[in-house]
Structure formats: structure tokens, C-alpha cells
């Protein structure tokens, strides 16, 4: 396995009194696509928020390209080249489609992605560029969310629930675009409810249960039983 681009050890996270992550260990290799699965509330979103600096990490270490980033703010993490496509799309409602994309470009790292490339990837967005982002359909909004993250030319992109709430056809479109996105050597972490999809695009998979890693393995090699045991904790 090549040198990990991201290494997490003993990561915990709290919402007030409630502990959502308990000492999570994880690694992402350069250029790989990693899948994270787990039931509702398992802590997947919490993990991605911790990685991107949106939550303070009281315990544990996050190392990105050899640099400890656990204490950095989200904007500083973004500047280092980690981008998050958040759960539920979370576009800026008072910005137009193009403004949403341009906000993403603020991080301003060198790389292949720019407005043109994003419009090439999702041509429909060019048609809707001046529209309020809220007036788009769910799938188009997801495209904007992905495009917005790409605009910062990240080295590591995190997708939270990439297909949640989208019609099957749109899910197909998005997954079809995925190779084009991560193709250029970008590493990716994908949180996905649809286990089959998750396994099909990733090289390795982690399963979270109740804030702990309950399974880690190669996507091609883990068995259905292992997954369902890890997923539901069924002994």
C-alpha cells in the first residue's frame, strides 16, 4: 500500500454531552477511493466533519500528508486541499448557481478544475448558472455541491451521502461522473448508504457502528455476512 495521504488515530468527537465517535482509527492511501458505510446515526457524518475541521477534536490525531491538522479551522483545512461535499447538499440559498461554484474556487489552489471544467462535467449547470441555487432539482443541487468542492482543486475529496434522496437515474449519472472526478489522482472518501454502490466504486471499505469502526477490509474481499454483522452488530 502506498504512503497514506490521511491518517486518523484514536479520534473521538462529542456533541455536548453526547459522544458520537469513540477512538476511530483510519487511513486513506494516496489516490484511493475509500468507502465508509454504517447505519443511520453511526457517526459517518461526524467523522467527515471532524476531518474537515468543522468539529473540534478533543482526542486523537489527524495527520494529512504528514502534517497534524486536527487543530486547524475548516478554512485552513480547505486551503490544504481537503474538500467536503456535505450531506444534504447545503448550497448557499442566496447565491446563484455560478456564485456557489465561484465561492468554492476561493481556496484557489492550482489544478485542473475551473468553471469550464465543471460545466463540461455537468452541462446542465451552465444553462442554470444565473438561477437561484434553491430552484434546482435535488440532483442538480448535488451536482453544484460536487462542482463547488471540485473548484478548490482538492487532493482529497470527501463525499457525504453522495446519492441520498436522489432518483435512481440521477444516482447513475453521478456515479458515472465519479471516475472523471477522481481519475486525476485525487483521493476520495465516499459515505454511502447503498452498500453495493459503495463497494463497487471503492478499493477499501470501513464500516462504522455506534461511533466505532466495526469492520475494515478490501471492497472486493469482504463478505456479505461480515458486512451485515458489522452493520447491525448482529453477533
Amino acid at each position, binding site marked *: 500500500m502506498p504512503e497514506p495521504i490521511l491518517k486518523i488515530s484514536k479520534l473521538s468527537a462529542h456533541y455536548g454531552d453526547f459522544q458520537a465517535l469513540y477512538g476511530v482509527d483510519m487511513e486513506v492511501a494516496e489516490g484511493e477511493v475509500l468507502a465508509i458505510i454504517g447505519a443511520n446515526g453511526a457517526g459517518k457524518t461526524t467523522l467527515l466533519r471532524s476531518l*474537515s*475541521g*468543522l468539529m473540534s477534536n478533543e482526542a486523537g490525531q489527524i495527520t494529512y500528508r504528514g502534517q497534524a491538522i486536527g487543530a486547524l*479551522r*475548516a*478554512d*485552513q483545512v*480547505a*486551503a490544504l486541499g481537503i*474538500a*467536503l461535499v*456535505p450531506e444534504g447538499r*447545503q*448550497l*448557499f*440559498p*442566496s*447565491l446563484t448557481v455560478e*456564485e456557489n461554484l*465561484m*465561492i*468554492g474556487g*476561493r*481556496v*484557489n489552489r492550482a489544478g485542473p478544475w475551473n468553471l469550464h471544467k465543471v460545466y463540461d462535467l455537468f452541462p446542465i449547470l451552465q444553462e442554470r448558472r444565473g438561477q*437561484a*441555487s*434553491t430552484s434546482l432539482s435535488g440532483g442538480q443541487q448535488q451536482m453544484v455541491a460536487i462542482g*463547488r*468542492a471540485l473548484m*478548490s482543486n482538492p487532493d482529497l475529496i470527501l463525499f457525504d451521502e453522495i446519492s441520498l434522496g436522489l432518483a435512481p437515474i440521477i444516482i447513475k449519472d453521478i456515479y458515472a461522473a465519479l471516475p472523471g472526478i477522481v481519475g486525476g489522482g485525487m483521493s476520495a472518501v465516499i459515505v454511502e448508504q447503498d452498500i453495493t454502490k459503495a463497494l463497487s466504486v471503492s478499493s477499501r471499505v470501513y464500516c462504522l457502528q455506534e461511533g466505532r469502526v466495526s469492520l475494515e477490509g478490501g471492497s472486493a474481499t469482504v463478505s456479505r455476512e461480515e458486512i451485515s454483522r458489522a452493520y447491525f452488530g448482529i453477533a
Partner: protein
Amino acid sequence: MEWLNAVVQGTLLGGLYALFAAGLSLIFGVMRLVNIAHGDLIVMAAYLGLTATVVLGIHPLVALIVVIPAMAGIGYVLQRGILNRTLGDDLLPPLLVTFGLSVIIQNALLEGYTADPQKMNAGALETASLSVGGLSLGILPVLTFAVAVAVIAGLQWMFYHTALGRAFRAVSDNQDIAQLMGLNKRHIFGLAMALALAVTAIAGIFLGIRTSFDPSIGGGRLIFGFEAVIIGGLGNLWGTLAGGVILGVAQTVGAKIDPGWQVLSGHIAFLLILAVRPQGLFPRVSG
């Protein structure tokens, strides 16, 4: 004719209120910050202007060149040093902290400048007037109104046509996600406060030319500012101008009926509007 005069004078007065309110509207819109110290900051700007005119011997309007950057700097430092830490879902921390600031500013001004009423001398500008259709319009109120319109147009343009404006809107929509886009919200908030206090500087200078001021008059002006913001609707700058004008006209028309009703009728207009439209007249549509 007298009624028309009342309405016209009220509209011009509304310009002054809109100037008080524009800065409030900006920070209320961007970071939901209820700034109790805003009125005192306006008065502080007036004192800075006074000092500049006395020390440098310049016209109050020229003093803007000094006061605007000074207030902007103070705003940035204030926001990053203190106010950023009070932001969140809870209304109380910013309320109490800005109340504390208000008390401190008021009393510091009192220590520094005494309680004597002061006024800035703008020479002929104060008394000049032009006659339009039988109405006598003071140049100063007309200028105030024009500046208010210009400030609001400028803010509006900045808000919707510049990268900074985009950043303001993004942070106000969703702070977390904006951070993910590389925006440092603390810096953005600092800039918003700097901009708000730059507007405050203009408001303070015009207030200081229009009337005499002392360290205690901020509070009374603050409430008009809030009213204008709320009447206009959250985050809508043109709405804020409309709110100011509605207040001004309500006051002068009320005063026409009975001078005792001047301030009261402004407040009543505010309450009536809210009774009918609790979101204000022109709330920004949000998704």
C-alpha cells in the same frame, strides 16, 4: 401644502435613520448580531469627527477621510477580539456583551470629552437651503438623504456584485459550509463589522453636523435604527431605507397632529407594521 411639507421633511429625516440603520442591517443580516452598542458607536464616530475637525482644522465632511478608516479599524478589531466569540444560536451573549460595550463607550467618552453637548461646525452647509415647488429643503438633509441612498446602493452593489459580497452572503447562509469553502468566517465577520462601522462613521458625522451631541444620546438613536431594519425586513438594505423613510414620515406626520406624538407615532407605525407583517415589509426570500 403643510402636509406635503411634513411628508417631504419626514422623508429626508428618514435618510438619517437609514444611515443609522444601514450598518445595523448589514451586521444583523450577515451574522444575526444585535448590536446594542451601535448607537454609542455612532456617537463615538461623531466625537472622532469633532476631534479631527478641531485638531486638523478641517471641514467635518473632509474629516470623513480620517473617521471612516478609523471606525472601520475599530470595527474589525472589536469583532475579532470580542464579538466573534459571542456568536451562536443564543441571542443573549451578543446582547449582553454589546450592552457592556455600550456602557464602556458611553462612559469613556464622558471621561474623555465631558458631558458638554458638542457640535460640529459645517459652516454654510448647515443653513443652506434650496426651494422646490414652494417647499424649502435644507441642503444638509437633502445631502444626508442622498448619501444614505448612495451608501445603501453601494452596499447593495457590494453585496450582490463582488467577491466580498458573495462571501458575506455565503457566511450568512451557512457558516460551516462557508468555512469549507476556505472562508475564514471570523475574518469575514470582522470585515462586515468594519464595513458597518465605516457606515456608522458617516452616520455619526451627519448626526454631529445636524444636531449637538453628548455621550449619552446613542441609546435613543439606536432604537430608530433597529426599527428601520426590522420594518424593512432582515437583510434587505433597500428595505432598510424604506423603513427609515416610513419612520421619518410617521414622526413628522405625527408631529403635525401634535408635537408630543412625534416619537410615539414612529413607534406606533413600527408596531402596526409588525402586527400585519411580522417578518417586516420586504424580507429577503430564503430557501
